[in-house]
């Protein structure tokens, strides 16, 4: 596969490490809530697994060390968009 890196252009997927569903960004912030275990279990163990477009995290380990959010079809492997994960994380409300 080839991932079109937003900064570096097309790179072979073997330069990257795969993590999974972009939801892994959405770590529960309230670690003291009464149902925090339930929330963290859902965060840690229930991920989207669609047959179709999938937003997923890839790490350019043999490149610029950036984490990317790749939108890839799990039936055809067609990649429709690649974003810098840091921007996506901020857009999902993560900060300090």
């Amino acid at each position, binding site marked *: *596969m080839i991932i079109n890196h937003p900064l570096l252009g097309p790179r*072979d*997927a*073997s330069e990257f490490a*795969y*993590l*999974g*569903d972009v939801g892994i960004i959405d770590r529960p912030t309230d670690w003291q809530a009464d149902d925090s*275990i*339930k929330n963290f*279990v859902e965060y*840690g*163990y*229930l*991920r*989207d*697994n*669609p*047959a179709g477009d*999938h937003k*997923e995290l890839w790490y350019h380990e043999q490149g610029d060390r950036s984490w990317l959010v790749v939108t*890839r079809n*799990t*039936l*055809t*492997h067609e990649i429709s968009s690649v974003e810098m994960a840091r921007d996506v994380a901020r857009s999902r409300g993560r900060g300090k």
Partner: protein
Amino acid sequence: MQYSVFRLLKEGLTGNRGWKPVWREPDPRPEYDIIIIGGGGHGLSTAYYLSKVFGRRNVAVLEKGWLGSGNIGRNTTIIRSNYLLEGNQPFYEFSLKLWENLERDTNYNSMVSQRSILNLYHTDGQRDAYVRRGNAMFLSGADAELADAAQLRKELPYLDFDDARFPILGGLYQKRGGTARHDAVAWGYARGADSRGVDIIQNCEVTGIDIKNGKCIGVQTTRGAIRASKVAMCVAGSSGRVAALAGMRLPIESHVLQAFVSEGLKPVLPGVVTFGMGHFYISQSDKGGLVFGGDLDGYNTYAQRGNLPVVEDVVEGGMAIMPFIGRARLLRSWGGVMDMSMDGSPFIDKTHIDGLYFNGGWCYGGFKATPASGYCYAHLLAKDEPHPVATQLRLDRFQTGNIIDEKGAGNQPNLH
């Protein structure tokens, strides 16, 4: 029709005209006691044991393609019970015992061949881990044997002992492990279930799961609605898609595992061998092909195909331990979609929906589990009680923290 050498001779002498269809091709009836979604190995063995052991015959198996078209038809055929943890090992040992009597039980030769499986180790740490594992196998009544490098040099002289990047220090044997003819396993179970009245319905895809006030009452299919008091999901790589029909999210990701076979060769490998410093396992089929595999491609996918880097990585692992295979040729590669669970261990459990049951998360342990998976699933469906060797294979184990993580890889499916 009973199969035997005498039947074979009789048919041979009369032009093989007397052979009967191995199974019927029935149309779906409007209602069953139990519907099993998925006519793969686990679904068919579930139907077989339901009908044979638990006397439940008003059962239908719904298969969207042809029977055995799932991972039972695309795996590396290895059977073993060399697990570590209490949640797994007794289950897989139960499975291996069922394998050992499968042909007599089903009157179908699925070529169960206990040619042994050998896990090579290359460091002292790996040896210690294998000792722990081997002892756990003993504790569950299985067999295990530790072999040092000297013994392996005698038994497998053609492994690379002298010029290796990761020298072979020894290995963990399970002599009762081995292989089986994967398609024949599905056919044997299908034949046995069919002969006991189970309807195996091919080309019948489930398109909806009907739920009324929290209770599952049946399914919608490409061949019409079918009612049932119990609906049992058993669809391995398609678990995510089918469970979604019931609005369920699962602790499972779908990944592709590639497998490979070489051109036919005269016998070179007695049993199954696995490499400890790269992910590689290999055996030789009765037809003579080297059957081997390795790591997942590593990304979520439902496409039954993989990519080149993993092909190369797997074969590199092979050449690293057995450099004599260099001039053998890769004949065919294919991919199976694995239902990779979050801790690498499976589920056989009720769901939160009354009357809806789930069997999945087999990762790439699915084939060897086929008999026990079916037996324990049948037990659960028939008695609404988990079988004693499957009590820990629950969907809620992540909430309780009773995770069954053989590899210690954590909640990262593609690492298991």
